[in-house]
Structure formats: C-alpha cells, structure tokens
C-alpha cells in the first residue's frame, strides 16, 4: 500500500473523496490574509476561531492552516502582528473540534525538533489524529532577527530544515536512536506516545524556490503554492509530482490558496473589493511585503505591480474568488480540473461572510461533483464519536 493509500484508509480528511478540498488560511493572526484597515468583526482570538471552526465542520471543510508570526509586518495595520502561537492554538482547537484537520505552522529555526515532535504527538492525542505540520524556514528578516543569529542563508536553511525533519520523523517512529548531523546531535532519542495517525501527521510546506520544492518533494504530502493562471496551476502540479517521483519515488499533491468576496451580484462583490482593497488597503504594508518578495518596480509593468499589490492586499497573493456564487464556484471547479487537490480560502470577515459562501457556493461544487454532500462523507466511526459529548467548549 502506498503512503497515500494508508492516509486514505485511515480516513484522513486531507485524503478523502472530495476532489476539491477546502480549508482556511490564517484565522489566528490579526487581519488574517487581508492587508486592509477596512471594518471587520474578525478578531484573531480563540472564541472567534472556535466559531469559525464549528461553521466549517458543519459545512464539511477539510482543514485549517494557521499562520506562524512573531511580529507584524509594519504599516498602520501592523499586518498579522497580534496572533496566537500555532502549537498552542492547535492544541486548544483540537480540544473543542471533532472532525476538521488542523495544522501547526512552525518556523523550524525557532524550535528544537524534539520539542516540536513531542508537542505534535500531544496534539495528535488530544485531537485523535487530526494534526499535521506545516514547516517554514523563516523568510521575514525582522522576525527572525528577534531570535538573533538564527536566520540562515537560504540554502543552509533547507539543510537545517532537512535535519530538523529527519529528527522529527525519527522521534515519531524510532526508540533509543542516536543522530548526529551538522545541526543536531541526539543521544539515545526516545519518545512516547508516538502519533496515533497512520502513517504519521500530514506534512505540508510552501517553498517555491528550487531548494524549497526539493524539500517539499522529499518530505511532504502537499506542496502549497500560489497560482497565476489555471495553466500555471497545471504545470506546477505536474512538475511537483514528477520531481517527487523521479527524485524520491514519492507521491505528492499540490494545494493553493485564494480569497473570497462572494455576493449576490457581481457589482456588489466588486464594490466590496474596491472598498477593502483599493480604498482601505494598507498599501504601506503591501509595499513592504512586495519588496521582501522581490517584486520590483523596475522590472515589471505598472499594471502588473498594481495587480500584484492588490492581490496581496486582497488575500496574501492568493487567487481572487470575487463575484457571484456561480462565478466563484466556476473558478473553484477550474482549479480542481488543473489537478490541484484543493484551496485554502480567506475572508475579510469569516463569521459574517462564510455562511453565505457555505450556503451558496458549496451546493454548486457538489452539483459539479468536485465535492460530496457532507452527510455521505461522514464515516460511521465519526458519527459514533459525535455522540460522546465529553468536553463542552466553554468559551463558545
């Protein structure tokens, strides 16, 4: 049985029958994915996150990927500054949810792999096997500077991440092992419990550089990336699958991210987009971030630059799902046709905007056959679990 077969057999939501998997991105950080000063009820606190997660579980979403951030990006929004740390966030979310798959997002240089593996095993137990790991090497210099001297050169960063991941995998699968690398020396490594999931927690990463993609191909189950067009989505997915197979004899999937502005009419959707992106957008922080990503004004046309910035403000550079439910659903169906396994979505105001999306877009995706209606999807085992009302979430 292949690794992916084992995940499927174990009933892992990230490997269920839905052709287009859905999750959300960054509900734990201030502003989530939108760099704007527009009005919103959204708060990156636990209560709000639980509300969102319950809505998602009711609608059958697959996962939540939090953003790991140690400081804001600046600008007057100080985008993503106020946030919940992702291991503790995931542990608490695990305690009050039942079905959704959760991820920790971890800057590998900030954390010892033994600590990380132990925390993930603990969350695995709390969630009964619903925790995965998103590894990040740390690309935001002001943030990594706080950890003084921990920011490494890019390639070195991936060598470090490779060792880090090797240690974690050993902690999850071996007892009494020694490990000696350039960065870590483990004497008589041992850990109990190991994660209960089969074969192990889902691993994801979003590296787009050559090294980053290699790392992804070698270790992870999903490579996350932005898409510029459907054509590009298809190419990227094929490239990743080929790389993983040719180099490491491994399967891999791809996953992307997008932002949603869904309204009854196209006009309303565009108006709201204009309001939060063009009028209330925090262009200062968009500039800071575009500079960091090397999106330079000299080598690109003004149109390209404006669009790039708008996409960042709209939703961290993700795909724009702006329009009527039909238009949004169409775009999503197109994405699933490229071979990409799913998309994370972000909303400016999750609690306010997600219900409309769930009621109007999800049925269209079901009609199109890219998602199954929620009832059929529930395995008998899960239904049993829902009856054991052991812990009541107190904060909601």
């Amino acid at each position: 049985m292949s690794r992916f077969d084992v995940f499927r057999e174990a009933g892992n939501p990230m490997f269920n029958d839905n052709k287009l998997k859905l999750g959300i991105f960054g509900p734990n950080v201030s502003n989530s994915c939108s760099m704007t000063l527009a009005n919103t009820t959204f708060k990156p606190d636990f209560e709000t996150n639980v509300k969102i997660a319950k809505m998602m579980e009711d609608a059958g979403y697959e996962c939540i990927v939090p953003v790991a951030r140690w400081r804001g990006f600046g600008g007057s929004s100080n985008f993503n500054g106020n946030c919940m740390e992702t291991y503790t966030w995931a542990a608490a979310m695990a305690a009050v949810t039942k079905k959704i798959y959760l991820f920790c997002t971890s800057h590998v240089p900030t954390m010892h792999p033994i600590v990380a593996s132990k925390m993930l095993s603990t969350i695995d137990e709390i969630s009964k096997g619903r925790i995965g790991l998103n590894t990040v090497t740390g690309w935001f210099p002001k943030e990594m500077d706080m950890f003084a001297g921990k920011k490494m050169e890019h390639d070195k960063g991936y060598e470090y991440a490779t060792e880090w991941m090797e240690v974690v995998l050993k902690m999850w699968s071996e007892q009494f092992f020694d490990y000696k690398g350039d960065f870590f020396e483990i004497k008589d490594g041992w850990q109990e419990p190991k994660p209960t999931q089969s074969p192990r927690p889902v691993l994801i990463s979003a590296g787009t550089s050559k090294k980053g993609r290699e790392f992804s191909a070698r270790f992870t189950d999903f490579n996350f990336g932005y898409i510029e067009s459907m054509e590009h989505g298809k190419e990227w997915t094929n490239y990743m699958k080929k790389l993983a197979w040719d180099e490491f004899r491994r399967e891999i999937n791809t996953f992307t991210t997008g932002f949603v502005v869904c309204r009854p009419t196209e006009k309303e959707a565009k108006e709201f987009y204009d309001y939060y992106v063009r009028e209330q957008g925090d262009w200062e922080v968009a500039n800071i971030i575009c500079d960091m990503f090397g999106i330079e004004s000299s080598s690109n046309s003004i149109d390209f630059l404006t669009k790039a910035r708008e996409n960042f403000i709209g939703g961290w550079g993700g795909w724009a799902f702006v329009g009527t439910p039909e238009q949004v659903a169409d775009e999503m169906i197109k994405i699933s046709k490229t071979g990409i396994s799913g998309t994370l979505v972000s909303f400016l105001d999750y609690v306010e905007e997600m219900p409309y999306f769930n009621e109007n877009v999800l049925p269209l995706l079901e009609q199109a056959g890219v998602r199954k209606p929620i009832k059929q999807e529930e395995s008998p085992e899960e239904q049993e679990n829902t009856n054991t009302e052991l812990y009541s979430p107190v904060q909601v």
Partner: protein
Amino acid sequence: MDKWVLYGKSGNPASDIAKAWLKNNGIPSENYSIFQLTREEIARLANLLPGGAKDLVYPNTFSFSLINPQKKTEKEYIHQIHKGELTEDEIIGILGTYPALVISPIITDYKTVLVGYNLEKMVSTFRYVKVKDITMA
C-alpha cells in the same frame, strides 16, 4: 509602566492611522478628543516642545483648513500665533479656548510629545516602551 495618551479627531486620517498604529503595535493608549485638551494640559505639552506652544499649532491656514474646513473663527489665529507677536501665555490661552488649532494627533506620556503622525518618530519614540506593569517587587 509608561502611560500614553492620544488626542485626536475622529475622521482625521492622521489620528486614525496613529491610533491604528499604536493599537496594532501593542502599545496601549488612552484616546481622547483633541477638544478635551484643557489650558493646563496645553501648558504642560508646550513646556515639552523646543518652540513652545506654537509647535502645537498648524503651520498655516491651508493645512488647518484641510482638517477643519468649517472652522472659520479659529483660522484667524493661526497667522497671529506664528507671526511671533503673542506671548507664550497668550498662545496657550487661545489654544485652551480653541483646541481645534492644535495639530492632531498629539501623542504624549507628558515626558515626550509627538505632534502629528510621523512614522519614523513613532518608531524611534517607542523603543523600549513598557506596556504592561509587571511588578517585580
């Protein structure tokens, strides 16, 4: 702990943005309307500025009118204040009566005072700022 106060005007972009910056950078402030400034507070603030009270005032009628399009009475004082013919006390008196003349926002802990929104100055002022009281005694 350092206690910071912001005097601003609602709907004034500079005030709003400064308020947002403080909030989002994790620096608690008590926020008041600039119209709540008393004569005594203006005197205290003036004392902290190299040029005294006139440093608190819009530099010209144009910049004042941008922010306060409908305030005609106050406008007349701007020229007078900056001409240098008034004593410090007289200026403070005028500002006490017409706080609209004061540039917004004013951000102060009554040791330092920031006049208007100036990102670089904010960044340098809030180095090592103590935002929470952790009594170690």
